[in-house]
């Protein structure tokens, strides 16, 4: 009986080793030091309070001076409002949260395909680029209504930049490639701005990125996921300048493939993500980067994630700071509002106060 047991054991060990060898080989070329430097601030912010969340499907719909609004991917009419500035003896407490059920006038629920909520004081918007549809309501009233001509364009991602205009990321029907554009309340309702996104590989994944609007400076920002570049634009979508993030990946490393049985176009290798998530506030661009710099230890990202800060005035790199991981996992999204840094993990929201030494006071912003 001894022989089969030793045979089975050696089979098991060999098989396991084979897979582990594959793993170590594949992992090698992902995280190596890159030739750029990071200036890391140790005291960029201090934690104030946090709140456990019931679900991991929340995303940040927006934030104002006193509140964070969390919308939910799986329950699109559900909104969780948390106070960020209610002081008690220990400082600021997040304990006070309100669950809100949004209402939409004159719309059949099932028509929604990919609704996303965005809060921009004093309004909240529900945008669905696949339906397509645009709805708007007032914060605290929570009743959305269709408010402008919204059947003009399909889009992947949209952000409001004034009470009746949106910047959108869409797929051009002419070129089948990603294109930026805007939707306005008056004719021409939709205007695309081809030429802003620069194709490197397929025009679909290689140009993918994040759209932001900075209210304090009135600028639109588009940051690529897979290369070290971002564009700063005015609200008419004229590119003011193209800035670079500190890393050295100027050419996107992505590869797409079609699956005919599913009529889908998808990535066929994991992409090299340069900019994972980002936000803009008060003339600054905050970027979470998964790339190690030359002056960081190899295990620098074991317990924390790096955020690099750029000045949107001229695109210069200012400094970086680390945001700690929570239960071993990096944060998913973050926002900066005035001196508050809001960080969303899978099921945890943390509120931090930025150090005034590095982050100057913002001017109050009037909504147009």
């Amino acid at each position: 009986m001894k022989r089969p047991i030793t045979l089975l054991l050696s089979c098991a060990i060999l098989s396991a080793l084979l897979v582990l060898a594959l793993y170590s080989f594949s992992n090698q070329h992902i995280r190596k030091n890159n030739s750029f430097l990071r200036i890391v601030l140790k005291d960029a912010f201090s934690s104030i309070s946090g709140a456990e969340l019931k679900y991991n499907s929340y995303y940040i719909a927006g934030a104002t001076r006193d509140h964070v609004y969390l919308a939910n991917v799986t329950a699109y009419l559900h909104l969780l409002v948390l106070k960020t500035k209610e002081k008690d003896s220990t400082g600021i407490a997040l304990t006070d949260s309100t669950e809100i059920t949004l209402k939409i006038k004159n719309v059949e629920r099932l028509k929604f395909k990919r609704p996303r909520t965005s809060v921009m004081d004093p309004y909240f918007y529900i945008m669905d680029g696949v339906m397509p549809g645009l709805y708007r309501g007032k914060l605290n009233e929570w009743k959305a209504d269709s408010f402008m001509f919204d059947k003009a364009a399909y889009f992947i991602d949209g952000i409001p930049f004034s009470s009746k205009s949106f910047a959108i990321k869409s797929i051009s029907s002419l070129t089948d490639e990603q294109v930026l554009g805007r939707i306005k309340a008056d004719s021409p309702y939709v205007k695309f701005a081809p030429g802003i996104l620069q194709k490197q590989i397929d025009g679909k994944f290689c140009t993918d990125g994040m759209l932001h609007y900075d209210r304090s400076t009135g600028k639109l920002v588009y940051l690529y996921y897979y290369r070290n570049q971002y564009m700063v634009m005015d609200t008419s979508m004229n590119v003011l300048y193209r800035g670079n993030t500190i890393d050295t990946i100027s050419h996107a490393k992505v590869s797409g493939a079609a699956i005919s049985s599913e009529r889908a176009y998808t990535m066929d290798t994991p992409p090299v993500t340069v900019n994972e998530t980002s936000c803009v506030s008060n003339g600054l661009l905050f970027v979470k980067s998964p790339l190690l710099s030359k002056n960081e230890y190899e295990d620098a990202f074991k317990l924390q994630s790096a955020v690099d800060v750029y000045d949107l005035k001229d695109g210069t790199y200012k400094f970086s700071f680390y945001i700690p991981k929570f239960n071993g996992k990096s944060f998913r999204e973050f926002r900066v509002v005035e001196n508050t840094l809001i960080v969303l993990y899978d099921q945890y929201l943390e509120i931090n106060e930025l150090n005034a030494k590095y982050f100057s006071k913002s001017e109050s912003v009037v909504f147009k």
Partner: protein
Amino acid sequence: MIIEIICVLFIILFVYAALTKLLDYEKFRVQIGQSPLLTAFAGWIAWMVPVAEILIAIMLVFIRLRLVGLYAAFSLMVMFTTYITCILTLSLYIPCSCGGVLEKLGWKEHLVFNIAFIILAAAAVLISYRKEKPIAQIVTAKVN
């Protein structure tokens, strides 16, 4: 009898798994490529896995090859299980690349499913040794 049942289970599992992969090879290839562990070898693995599954299934059909087939099935299941464990514990993100009904299993369920099949294979191997022994003794007795 137990060995036969286990073999049939493995044949069904492997033939089913291989066919769902090969019938939509394009999709399987892409999914393998998306895996953070297998990217560099996607082209090879996308062929080798279904071919290995079918070969093992054929081995299990023939009595002479059955024992080797069981060892191979055992090893393959250990590889799959190691892979899932790596993905669940070491990987930054979790992709999905199982065919057909198996696609509906969660990673944790998949792990349990795999371990169950590893135990089945090991059991079948051990039982087949126990059975062979007396036969072997009779044979030697005759020779003597």
